């Protein structure tokens, strides 16, 4: 089966055709009723689903004929605050198909840094919007796996999910596709060379200073004089230079001129800088900055917190349709070693599992879920429109992109061990637009391996990609993508 064009999409398509003749390549308004937002949260390094929401207890593993001492099976959670300095526990979350793991351990960072993690409160709070899709992916190479996780392994035109989102909803946005995290395959450009450059991801090196590069604020010339000088340069002088005539066919020169005349002008007229400043500069701050600093109090030192705050502002101000944020391979510390939560992000992120499996997985699951929780709360508190019937979260899809899972073996009963990359895994996506509180597929407790719609078949990257496009109401007719519409709310 392949996906079909929905009625709403068809109407939107017709309207788009009608608008086409009047569309001059500049921004046009997106009807509020048609809005969607995409948040890609990068779980860099291989976030294992069997160490989080599909974890297996020792008892379950043994009952199914497996050897829990040699597999990554968890002890049963006692239901009360666990005792001991080292543990790895799992418990079911009532009313949900999910499990929640808890872990306590330490990481050596010059000195032992202790941490205790429990995923239970997150699942309890958000299970209605959580959908886990099991999958067996096609690469255990980080960069390749990351790119495939956002392109469905090149399933549809070679575009990333962020690019598809930007094409579908980004025509009215000044920065349709913003990549707040850097240095991974999750933010690599897709393979569609025909993609309009407006929809290619805009990289943000530092969310705190980036807004400066979006306008003319803080310069020693008045905005009016800059505007006049640009006008003389672009309209009167540039076309008449000998250089311009000599290199009239240069695509690079044409790209610069087009960017100046359209996108730069759009950014400045939308006053993007003023609305995105998170504070800390002489230019002041956006109206929401103080609230965001309460939610993300260490954003000055923790760039991923700053990314989350910026992601919210980009979506709230309707500057973007798609935002990508989250850990890359860089470790992050905040404050001094004796401070609570000093070691904020492990070096290599989830891939720290090569050094110690449980700390790599549970430390980082806690990290990304905490970010997600705060961002979801912000979006829930933001009305979609003046009627206030829906929140922005009601139209948001959050995708926890990861490249692969981890190997399930361990030395007998070890709590500290290393794990390699594994194709078998599953992904988490969250949205009121999805039929949540659902696991698609299951886990074989004897091997702690996931399976797809039945025990003999597996979903792959393409199924996650098709599910996301379906929730985002992207037209996939003729694509040959699998029909995952059963997972999308009508």
């Amino acid at each position, binding site marked *: 089966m392949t996906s079909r064009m929905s009625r709403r999409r068809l109407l939107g398509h017709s309207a788009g055709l009608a608008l086409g003749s009047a569309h001059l390549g500049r921004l046009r308004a997106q009807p509020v009723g048609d809005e969607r937002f995409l948040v890609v949260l990068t779980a860099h390094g291989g976030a294992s689903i069997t160490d989080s929401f599909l974890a297996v207890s020792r008892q379950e593993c043994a009952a199914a004929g497996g050897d829990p001492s040699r597999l990554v099976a968890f002890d049963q959670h006692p239901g009360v605050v666990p005792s001991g300095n080292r543990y790895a526990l799992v418990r079911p979350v009532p009313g949900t198909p999910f499990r929640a793991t808890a872990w306590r351990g330490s990481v050596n960072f010059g000195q032992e840094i202790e941490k205790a993690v429990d995923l239970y409160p997150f699942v309890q709070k958000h299970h209605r919007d959580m959908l886990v899709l099991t999958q067996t992916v096609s690469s255990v190479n980080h960069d390749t796996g990351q790119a495939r996780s956002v392109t469905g392994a090149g399933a549809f035109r070679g575009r990333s999910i962020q690019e598809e989102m930007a094409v579908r909803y980004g025509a009215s946005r000044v920065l349709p596709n913003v990549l707040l995290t850097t240095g991974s395959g999750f933010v690599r450009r897709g393979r569609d060379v025909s993609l309009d450059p407006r929809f290619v991801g805009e990289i943000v090196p530092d969310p705190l200073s980036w807004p400066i590069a*979006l306008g003319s604020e803080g310069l020693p010339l008045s905005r009016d004089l*800059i505007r006049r000088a640009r006008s003389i340069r672009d309209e009167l002088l540039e076309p008449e*230079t000998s*250089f311009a005539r000599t290199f009239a066919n240069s695509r*690079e020169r044409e790209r610069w001129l087009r*960017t100046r005349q359209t996108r*730069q002008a759009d950014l400045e007229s939308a006053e993007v800088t003023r609305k995105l400043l998170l504070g800390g500069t002489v230019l002041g701050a956006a109206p929401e900055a103080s609230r965001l600093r309460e939610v993300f109090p260490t954003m000055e030192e923790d760039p991923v917190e700053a990314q989350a705050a910026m992601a919210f502002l980009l979506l709230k101000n309707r500057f973007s349709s798609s935002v990508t944020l989250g850990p*890359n391979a860089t470790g992050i510390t905040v404050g001094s070693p004796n401070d609570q939560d000093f070691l904020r992000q492990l070096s290599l992120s989830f891939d720290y599992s090569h050094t110690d499996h449980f700390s790599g997985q549970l430390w980082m699951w806690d990290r990304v879920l905490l970010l997600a929780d705060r961002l979801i709360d912000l979006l829930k508190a933001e009305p979609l429109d003046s009627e206030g019937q829906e929140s922005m979260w009601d139209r948001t899809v959050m995708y926890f992109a990861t490249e692969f899972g981890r190997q399930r073996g361990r030395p007998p009963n070890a709590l500290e061990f290393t794990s390699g990359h594994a194709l078998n895994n599953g992904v988490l996506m969250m949205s009121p637009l999805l039929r949540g509180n659902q696991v698609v597929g299951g886990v074989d407790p004897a091997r702690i391996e996931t399976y797809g719609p039945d025990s003999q078949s597996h979903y792959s990257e393409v199924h996650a990609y098709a599910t996301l496009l379906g929730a985002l109401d992207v037209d996939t007719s003729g694509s040959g993508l699998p029909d995952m519409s059963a997972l999308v709310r009508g």
Partner: protein
Amino acid sequence: MFRDSRPSWIKGRLTAVVAVVLAVGCSAEADLSQSGGTGRSVPGDEADLGPVDAAQPGDQTALVSELKSKSGRRYVNSLAAALDLPAQTLCRELGELDCLDVHGISLQEVEPRFLRVQSPINGLVTGAVALDRIAILSCDRHVRNQGGPPTDDTFQRREAIDSWARRLLRRDATELEQEKLEALYEELQGESDETQWSTAVCFIFATLTESFLY
């Protein structure tokens, strides 16, 4: 010696292409000594490029236009050399941040250590804004530090415009540039001081595409 095993028809075409390139090159050189010219045909047995307007060598449209943008650091270095200022302190954003720290990635710099950006990223929209900001901040610094050239009368302003063009573009200003920038001066009379005009002229020359594409 390597044996040339290419088919004879390829050898023939290559000979023709080489002949065309040499002919264009020689003609362009010859044109340097001419004050004008008429359309001409480029000879060749298989390819005739048709009439080429060649009033000035620079007026010919290049057959190959594979231009590249200077990276942020190269651009800052070239500005620093043109403005007689040290590159390290040439440009500070909001008076405190190094411009390349803020805008480097937008202008194809890499930062492998923390951002893990290991190869230049071209085509970011922020690159256009970043270039303008670096130019304005650098020009302002030069004008504040060293003062712009004198602009008391038309002659001095004409000299000033030429001097900015020579600094930043290694050429004299064209008549059109003289005319439009003089007009800007007239427009600004009473609105802002002359240093603003100097900074604006510097900014315009520093951000013409010929200043950062190569």
